[in-house]
């Protein structure tokens, strides 16, 4: 892997609440290089969105973040808010899940894209306002808004869901960021539109060499666009590796569970999709053992260790740095 633009080391996020400290992210590492795509997958509440918000410094005041978030070697954790402000939207940008609520209903889409440009380009007011508008139209055109110069004056509610998500992407890319974090960018969209938006993300990534962090629970999308995958469970990394490692050599029972729940056309059809029994533990309720143990089908084979000892990431056979946090030594399916 090329030198990563974004490296996250031992990231912890703890929320201070009335009910005490709630750990949402409990020590995760990941890295992504220019032009590459890292997918972070996991169920709701696994800490994937909190991780991305932590990288952007967008968590509320009651969140404690420790660890390192290195952007081109510069640590963003603990950066003064004014310094962080200059990074946000400029070096790292975010694409949200729901474009309708992510856009401000009171301003035209052109204004909103232009604002993202103006916030990071100089002081000379009038000249840059015109330039910002020009850049906004250019970006809107680039993300495939037809008749962009005219549509720039329209308001978010006058667009369809897919077009709105294109606007959000234009807004995120207008400053040509090094890293783009897309938090379930297609979840709120129709299936056909989903494919268009993913294609668009791939295209702009190729054009600008952006590093993409794709947060998703759609393994179909992940298989198609990701280079590397991080599987998160209960705020920790369950498994990480290349996309082929995950799809062909998954080592963690949770990863297998996710794969089993996904319809596939490349393998003989199963009578029915499998589900993972139970639900993820609520943050803060995790005890000493493996967080996945209560839902795991392989616990009996390992025995006591799953309850008493928390598994760490250990190397597994695979292409690169394939690792899984499971006491089961061999691949579950080989046993």
């Amino acid at each position, binding site marked *: 892997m090329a030198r990563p633009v974004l490296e996250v080391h031992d990231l912890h996020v703890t929320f201070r609440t009335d009910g005490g400290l709630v750990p949402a992210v409990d020590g995760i590492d990941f890295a992504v290089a220019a032009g590459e795509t890292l997918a972070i997958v996991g169920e709701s509440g696994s800490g994937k969105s909190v991780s991305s918000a932590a990288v952007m410094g967008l968590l509320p005041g009651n969140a404690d973040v420790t660890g390192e978030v290195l952007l081109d070697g510069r640590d963003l954790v603990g950066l003064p808010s004014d310094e962080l402000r200059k990074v*946000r939207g400029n070096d790292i940008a975010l694409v949200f899940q729901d474009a309708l*609520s992510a856009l401000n209903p*009171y301003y035209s889409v052109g204004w909103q894209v232009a604002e993202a440009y103006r916030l990071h380009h100089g002081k000379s007011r009038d000249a840059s306002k015109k330039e910002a508008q020009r850049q906004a139209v250019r970006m809107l055109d680039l993300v495939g808004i037809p008749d962009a110069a005219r549509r720039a004056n329209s308001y978010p509610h006058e667009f369809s869901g897919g077009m709105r998500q294109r606007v959000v992407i234009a807004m995120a890319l207008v400053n040509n960021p090094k890293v783009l974090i897309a938090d379930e960018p297609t979840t709120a969209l129709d299936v056909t539109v989903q494919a268009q938006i993913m294609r668009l993300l791939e295209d702009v990534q190729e054009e600008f060499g952006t590093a993409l962090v794709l947060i998703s629970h759609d393994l179909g999308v992940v298989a198609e666009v990701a280079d590397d995958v991080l599987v998160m469970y209960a705020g920790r990394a369950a498994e990480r590796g290349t996309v082929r490692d995950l799809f062909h050599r998954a080592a963690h029972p949770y990863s297998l569970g996710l794969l089993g729940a996904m319809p596939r056309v490349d393998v003989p059809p199963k009578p029915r999709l499998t589900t993972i029994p139970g639900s993820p533990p609520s943050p803060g309720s995790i005890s000493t053992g493996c967080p996945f143990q209560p839902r795991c089908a392989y616990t009996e084979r390992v025995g006591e260790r799953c309850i008493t000892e928390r598994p760490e990431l250990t190397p597994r056979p695979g292409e690169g740095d394939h690792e899984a946090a499971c006491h089961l030594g061999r691949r579950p399916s080989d046993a």
Partner: protein
Amino acid sequence: MPDLAWFVVRRLAAAVLVMLALSFAVYLIFYAIPADPANLACGKPCTPDRLEQARHFMQLDQSTIQQYLNFLKGIFAGRTFGDGTAAVHCNAPCFGYSFPLARPVTTLILERLPITASIALGAAVLWLIIGVSLGVVAALNRGRPLDRLSVGFALVGVASPSFLIGLLAILVFGFWLNMVPVSGYIPLTDSPVDWAWHLVTPWLVLAVLQAASYIRLTRAQMMEELNLDHITTARAKGAGEARVVLTHGLRGALVPIVTLFGLDLGGLLGGAILTEKVFSMQGLGDLLISAVAQLDVAVVVGTTLFSAFLIILANLLVDIVHGVLDPRVSHG
């Protein structure tokens, strides 16, 4: 915006109908009171003969419907009471004639309006600034002392009657500290400084009372707005906190604030009755109260209709502004 023009035309037409219905209702109500205005005009001793003369002169001897039609006609064509040398003219638009004051109601309203408008507009600017800024501060400091302080201030403002705050203000600033004049009104055209100086206490009193609801409304709206996803977007774009709060947060809270402001101002322009009384200013509220005391029905009807007109106008303006402020609202 042809949509907007058509909307305004339709609303104005509706407003005329509302005014018509309202004027008729007001007419019926005030002319149904058992006391006879002619009695006052007749003087003492009042012989039945002179009373009848007075009633004829004031056109009170006609049927209620006829009187109402006369009133409507007067708006467009003016009216003349009596004949010969004793005749009294009321030029169009004539909204009635006050016999006790010997002036057309239109003239009376126009004379008093600058005073009420001075009080209302000045106070409105103050309460809008105080209310919205304290509301924003409260929302940003939710649960902290600044929030508690603002909400406490709002509570005092809501709970206090204007005559109490007004009299206290006069007592403290007018008499004890001797800082400001205690009563009276100087026209703006005479001396802008004296005008403002005489108005500053009523402005502050009204502002304190009215700001309360703006603090609470702004606080609630801002807390809601600042939780929305597009606020996170603004932060993610790299907007500074001030820009996030004002350009993105307050922008969304503006519509309900402007709505309340328009209606409050419209209501107040019709006469700040208690405030005018406390500060001895002869505005529309004072005109109305005196007219009620003197059974001056024409003035009561005129000022009531004028107040109603202001409320309708304020509603219309609020609706128009609403469409300008919120692109999702269509007037079509």
